[in-house]
């Protein structure tokens, strides 16, 4: 069965609808209105006749038209009743935002069992409980209860995010908007009483607007299904996973977070490897890996050209390359000869190629033409243009991106942030070259491209 109605519902009933700003349901509705959700929005609450100018119904039973999806954020005790009612009305999908289920243990576990049974018996598909729900950036639909004024909605793009944690997806959305990384779909599925990451990966495999999937996971819904779904998906898309709950203390915390048992971290690592998933360490690496995979293609090998006008950055990037298994191989004689004819003799031509502070925009073009475009020795390049010298102008972004395109090889830019360079960063990224603000992050991003290439990933 398809999950389409969770992302692109034609009609949605919001249970417990209210204008009370302290109630999260009010933000769910105002967010949807603000986003310009084009489907039918139907508030349900026996205490109101109208909510935000929309006709409010006392219960689902009174609604005449077909409802595709309910959004439930009322107290957990009343959730089973709502599900029974929607089953009677033939509504087949529900997103339960409310907490108060398995994550509490004891009675909460029983309550979650009850809603699972209702959904199974009555043929209702469920996302949640204890979650943020979904954002579909193209259908303009979201169940987030956090106002877009405080968490900026990311632009439309090609990144799909799946997460057991709600706080993570919210922070990610905010960070992604700041980074200008566009998003297709976001799902926070919390306790995962029904729909989990494996089925969502299967679904996103066929979603043309999603090119990269980033997953925050504490545990897995069904290990073998996850491996099958991811192995299949990673043939045509990239999957990046951030696994939390890796050590005993984290595993304990994960259990009380979403009520799921996490298991041995080493085996997750093995599963990621089997599935063609790129595993990352921490939120920053997660963002960077998603970004680089959205903007560049995997490298065919691990021979990396490092090109700069700042010696120190060349050295530190080379060090970090060696630490991550990237080969800063010596520049072959043929390339050196070609460049020595065009460059002054104080330019250093072995890898890293250090064109010193006296080089300018055009020198980047010359170096890249000989070392990347006309020669296939290097598989990829890390370019570190330092902008302060007067010979460097914003025109360098156009020159470097043109050469990168002609070479057909993946290129990433390392540029330490400053007020002026932020502007240049935007120029590079407009042209499709990802910029990372430190040698560490830049090298890590490149190593993701090399790792994906080694897996024979798309």
């Amino acid at each position, binding site marked *: 069965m398809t999950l389409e109605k969770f992302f692109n519902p034609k009609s949605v009933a919001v249970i417990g609808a209210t204008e009370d700003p302290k109630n999260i349901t009010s933000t769910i509705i105002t967010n949807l209105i603000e986003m310009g959700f084009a489907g039918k929005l139907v508030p349900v609450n026996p205490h109101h006749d109208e909510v935000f100018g929309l006709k409010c119904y006392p219960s689902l039973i009174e609604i005449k038209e077909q409802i595709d999806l309910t959004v439930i954020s009322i107290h957990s005790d009343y959730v089973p009743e709502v599900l029974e009612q929607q089953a009677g009305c033939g509504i087949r999908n529900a997103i339960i935002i409310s907490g108060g289920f398995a994550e509490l243990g004891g009675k909460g576990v029983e309550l979650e069992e009850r809603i699972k049974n209702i959904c199974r018996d009555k043929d209702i598909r469920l996302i949640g409980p204890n979650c943020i729900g979904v954002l579909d950036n193209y259908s303009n639909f979201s169940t987030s209860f956090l106002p877009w004024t405080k968490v900026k909605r990311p632009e439309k793009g090609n990144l799909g995010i799946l997460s057991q944690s709600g706080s993570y997806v919210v922070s990610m959305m905010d960070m992604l908007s700041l980074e200008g990384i566009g998003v297709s779909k976001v799902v926070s599925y919390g306790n995962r009483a029904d729909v989990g990451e494996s089925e969502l990966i299967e679904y996103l495999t066929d979603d043309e607007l999603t090119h990269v999937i980033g997953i925050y996971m504490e545990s897995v819904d069904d290990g073998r299904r996850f491996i099958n779904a991811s192995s299949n998906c990673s043939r045509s898309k990239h999957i990046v996973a951030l696994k939390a709950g890796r050590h005993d203390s984290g595993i304990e915390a994960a259990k009380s977070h979403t009520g799921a048992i996490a298991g041995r971290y080493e085996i997750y690592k093995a599963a990621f*490897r089997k599935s063609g998933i790129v595993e990352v360490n921490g939120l920053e690496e997660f963002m960077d890996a998603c970004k680089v995979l959205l903007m560049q293609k995997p490298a065919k090998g691990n021979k990396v050209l490092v090109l700069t006008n700042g010696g120190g950055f060349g050295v530190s990037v080379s060090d970090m390359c060696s630490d991550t298994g990237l080969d800063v191989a010596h520049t072959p004689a043929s390339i050196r000869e070609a460049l020595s004819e065009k460059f002054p003799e104080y330019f250093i031509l072995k890898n890293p190629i250090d064109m010193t502070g006296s080089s300018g925009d055009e020198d980047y073009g010359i170096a890249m033409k000989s070392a990347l475009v006309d020669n296939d020795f290097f598989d990829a390049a890390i370019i570190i243009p330092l902008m302060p010298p007067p010979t460097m102008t914003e025109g360098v972004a156009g020159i470097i991106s043109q050469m990168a395109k002609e070479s057909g090889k993946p290129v990433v830019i390392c540029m330490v942030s400053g007020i002026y360079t932020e502007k240049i960063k935007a120029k590079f990224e407009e042209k499709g070259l990802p910029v990372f603000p430190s040698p560490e992050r830049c090298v890590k991003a490149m190593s993701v491209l090399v790792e994906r290439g080694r897996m024979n990933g798309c």
Partner: protein
Amino acid sequence: MVAKDTKFKDALKVIENVQASGRKILFPDEAMDVIKSSGISTPAYTLVKTVHEASVETKSMGFPVVLKIVSPDVLHKSDVGGVVIGVENEKEVERNYAEIMNNLFKKVPDADIMGILVEKQMPKTTEVIVGGIRDEQFGPTVMFGLGGIFVELFKDVVFRIAPVTETEALEMIKEIKGYSVLNGYRGAERLDIQQLARTVVTISELISDIGEIKEVELNPLLVYTEGVTAIDARIIIK
């Protein structure tokens, strides 16, 4: 039990017999039977029940030998004085047999004793661990690591989802930090990494094929310049 299409038919038979007896942990000789019948090399071994049997059997397999207690009530054999290595002749067999029995009588007075496993002692070499674990979430997995402190202290182990191919097994072996120990560190001879990889493959297939196995561990597996030998095995079933 339904007949299964597996190349581990003899191993399955041993396991089914243990299941029928209601035990969850195989006796050392049964575990060795599973390993041997799966095509992994083991030293000569046999379970004896009397001193006389011990003398006869050790004479025919040749010295030195190792004696190990076999009892469902003893999990850690060395902790109760249940293992003697370097037994060089018939006289020592008799003396050590008596001593093991005496140790058991003192330390675990009510222990059920199945007998003593006599095993031909193998020359010293590098020890590794190869294991199979049926994970609750991901199903059968295979593990590899160097033996002894490398595993205990440095947790230098690597896992894969089972079954693995020989190429994947070789990758696993090369992935551990202590790989150079196997690959001819400081002029030492390179050990038989190919045969080690094949053993990893076999264990990965064994745990994938036989759903009854919860955990299997060759600890240690001895790795020589030619060939590998499993001298102790532990198998837990569902």
